[in-house]
């Protein structure tokens, strides 16, 4: 009998073109996403070498990172951004790559549009020059972020060189409490194992919590695998994943589809397969979370106090620097802290399900006067759904405006920058110093916590507003 394998082993091994002795594996890449920021230099270098794109139909381009979130019908004002967008468009056209530019009905954040259009499928290898490519792991794909040299490798050879990572299993059983969302689950995990706890590993999420989670929720969780340092994370494909994808535009149809479904159903970790690292948590221990520091591992349950340096995994010097930047002190409550900005969006929480949650809280209430809120759908399709489902009306009545899709304040490359010293509750994935603008102070949280902050103007336990 052959050795017991994990889900990750099965998908990885199926993509190894060759293993270099005492070196990396040459891994075949099924799908490659590109965007305007990390691809131009790759195309330039490729041209300098006199090479061309090997499989143009395996690469998909969308503009998202530096695009404006208002007036997308007008020319992009920022000259440098406009140049990058042009480069993406012309590089795609020259090389026969499909390109969903600004205003295209399929445009949106790369990790939102991939699954939404059925480009992402179980058992694939998927890469993109963006670390949150791990999102696609929700479908049982091996998906991870790469650098620009690697983008060039994939363009020219459809392969990259990678050492096979170690395997980690994160298992959570039990039932999540009220108002605890997938974002809280992943923030909880990162707070337990730290921002570097997954380094060198690829994660498989298993257990009742993930089995019962929606596809959108699994995407939120897999998205933030990188925030514990892991290369990526995945969930075994089940009927939920298959139902989500069936019939989407780029998903195979008919017999091809049926054959794939049969294959996907075999993709599970074998009994007795071994992991390098295993973490087991209990769903009952998780409450709505919020971060108070400058890395995603510095998060706590919303009702808790900012911990003493001896109780966190970070070194004392880094911890103090972090609290100093945030203007917070040890022992303080998070509840009641002042909020200036709320950012609802990103590839972590910019999907329709996230907006439904946000609307649940703001329905019948008013936006707090001291809060500036940026609500940014993850894609044009999400935007359309928000309107279709009547969520738009709820938001407008409560005094909110909806912006146009893009990465926006997740990385603040466009004009959506949180001003220096201001406090933002953000549904995105990184709270690094300056991530949302120079001097900006970010607190990461779920759409429910973001909505509660948006209507009360301070950090508020969403459970109080739901009852």
């Amino acid at each position, binding site marked *: 009998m052959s050795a017991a394998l994990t889900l990750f082993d099965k998908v990885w091994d199926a993509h190894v073109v060759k293993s270099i002795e005492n070196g990396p594996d040459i891994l075949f890449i099924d799908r490659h996403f590109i965007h305007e920021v990390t691809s131009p230099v790759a195309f330039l270098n490729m041209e300098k070498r006199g090479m061309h794109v090997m499989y143009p139909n395996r690469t998909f381009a969308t503009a998202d990172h530096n695009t404006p979130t208002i007036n997308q019908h007008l020319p992009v004002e920022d000259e440098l951004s406009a140049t990058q967008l042009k480069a993406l468009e012309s590089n795609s056209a020259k090389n026969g790559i499909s390109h969903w530019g600004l205003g295209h009905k399929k445009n949106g954040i790369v990790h939102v549009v991939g699954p939404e259009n059925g480009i992402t499928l179980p058992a694939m290898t998927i890469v993109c020059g963006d670390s949150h490519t791990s999102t696609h792991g929700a479908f049982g794909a091996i998906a991870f972020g790469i650098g620009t040299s690697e983008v060039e*490798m994939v363009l020219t050879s459809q392969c990259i060189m990678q050492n096979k990572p170690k395997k980690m299993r994160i298992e959570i059983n039990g039932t999540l409490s009220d108002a605890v969302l997938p974002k809280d689950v992943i923030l909880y995990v990162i707070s337990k194992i730290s921002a570097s706890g997954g*380094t060198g590993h690829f994660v498989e999420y298993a257990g009742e919590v993930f089995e019962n989670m929606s596809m959108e929720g699994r995407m939120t969780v897999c998205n933030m695998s990188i925030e514990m340092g892991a290369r990526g994370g995945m969930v075994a494909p089940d009927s939920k994943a298959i139902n989500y994808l069936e019939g989407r535009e780029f998903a195979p149809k008919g017999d091809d589809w049926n054959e*794939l479904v049969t294959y996907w159903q075999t993709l599970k970790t074998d009994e007795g397969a071994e992991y390098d690292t295993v973490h087991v948590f209990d769903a009952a221990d998780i409450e709505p979370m919020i971060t108070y520091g400058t890395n995603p591992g510095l998060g706590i349950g919303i009702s808790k106090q900012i911990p003493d340096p001896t109780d966190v995994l*970070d*070194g004392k010097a*880094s911890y103090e620097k972090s609290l100093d930047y945030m203007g917070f002190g040890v022992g303080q409550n998070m509840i009641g802290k002042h909020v200036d900005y709320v950012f609802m969006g990103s590839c972590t929480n910019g999907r329709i399900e996230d907006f439904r949650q946000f609307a649940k809280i703001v329905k019948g209430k008013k936006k707090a006067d001291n809060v500036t809120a940026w609500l940014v759908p993850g894609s044009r399709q999400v935007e359309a759904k928000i309107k279709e489902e009547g969520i738009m009306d709820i938001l407008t009545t409560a005094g909110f405006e909806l912006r146009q899709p893009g990465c926006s304040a997740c990385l603040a490359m466009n004009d959506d920058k949180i001003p220096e010293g201001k406090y933002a509750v953000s549904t995105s994935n990184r709270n690094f110093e300056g991530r949302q603008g120079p001097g900006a102070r970010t607190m990461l949280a779920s759409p429910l916590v973001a909505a509660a902050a948006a209507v009360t103007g301070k950090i508020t336990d969403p459970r109080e507003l739901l009852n």
Partner: protein
Amino acid sequence: MAYDKFHMLTSSVVPMPIENVDTDQIIPARFLKAVERKGFGDNLFRDWRYNRDGSPKADFVLNNPLYKGKILAGGKNFGCGSSREHAAWSVYDYGFRCVVSSFFADIFKNNCMNIGVLPVTVTPEFLDQIFSEIEKNPETELTVDLPNQEITLNATGQKESFDISDYKKNNLLNGYDDIDYLNAMKSDIEEFASSRPF
């Protein structure tokens, strides 16, 4: 792209004894708008290095004339965060050829090796030793010997060996990159591609 070969390096060290130095600090997103790889060294650690008005922050290590060299030593989990290769470019373009830490984020480490910066992982104790020697004497030198995979703290003679795969080592020693290798494998890749179910 071709880069300078790496063999032996003896240099003083710029110390950054902070954990979790992330790629948004190494190069903030607003400096990622270039379509060419040019001038990234100027914006390395931009927001730690300069005030908003562009004047240098006197207390930041890169602005302190006492500390210079081709080696950067950083605390645990160096390079965490985004996949932007621009972070590695800025390190290289500024003039560093080697980064030493007790722990690197994976993508940053790969990116470094792909462009000719050698990431050297040492034990936490050795890293502490490096920092404390630099504190005593800012001119403290390290010698990084790639062929023998050894790093030496010259002042004390303390040595550690470090890991690197034979393949990557060979690339760095010769200035090769992965694309040269992959290009030679075209027919194997084509055959593999034809058997994919999607």
